[in-house]
């Protein structure tokens, strides 16, 4: 529950969501993200810190450069949560159908 909330909070900010999505499939240094989103470097760093805290992003250091990339496992709590509701009602109503038969 805590994990889902942290993910929702982290991705609820449009800038953070955009940064997160832009990291899909390719890592990037802070400088590239600053240029891509036209926001200041401290703001980008702050967003990345929030994404890291939520487990959505990882960092790789190479000398003085830091490269950010998605943590593919980071979304798992959210996926589990959505999967639950995708399956929940059809499964329950199947049981309701069985109960109605027994009620005859």
């Amino acid at each position, binding site marked *: 529950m805590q994990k889902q909330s942290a993910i929702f909070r982290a991705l*609820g900010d449009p800038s953070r969501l955009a940064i997160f999505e832009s990291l*899909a499939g390719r890592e990037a240094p802070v400088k590239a993200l600053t240029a891509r989103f036209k926001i200041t470097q401290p703001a980008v760093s702050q967003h990345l810190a929030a994404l890291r805290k939520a487990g959505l992003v990882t960092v790789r250091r190479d000398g003085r450069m830091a490269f950010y990339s998605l943590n593919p496992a980071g979304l798992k709590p959210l996926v*589990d949560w959505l999967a639950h*509701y995708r399956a929940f009602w059809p499964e329950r109503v199947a049981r309701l159908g069985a109960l109605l038969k027994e009620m005859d």
Partner: protein
Amino acid sequence: MPAGDGSIHLSWQLPHPPAKVWRALSDPSLVARWLMETDMPTERGRAFTFRAKPMPHWDGIVHSEILDMDPPRRLSYAWKGGPGNSVLDTVVTWTLVPVDGGTRLELVHSGFKPEHGQAFGGAKFGWERNVGTGLAGVLADMA
């Protein structure tokens, strides 16, 4: 799966009359047999719960309240808590439509937005907008 407006819409054809389906939806001892243990009341406004076995992402308790009860046509209750406890504040509405040979049972589970303002809206928007791109790729990797 939440649709674009933050709700799940589903419907089923049941070969049973609305009055009987209504009983299964509103009699706590019957509801316990297909949905969850509950102390669902017969009047609006009183708090009650649905209770299931606790799971890894969920304490098993759904907090509820009857919002609309119009037998045997419409039953609506709050659905708060559930998996992701701190973020779910939703409404479940059942509509029973008499049809030839039984009942069409319609479900709308609406309000998939957390208290934290647009958090879920933002996440979901990203989710749906990015089918085929960013998130979809991440999800595919995880499958």
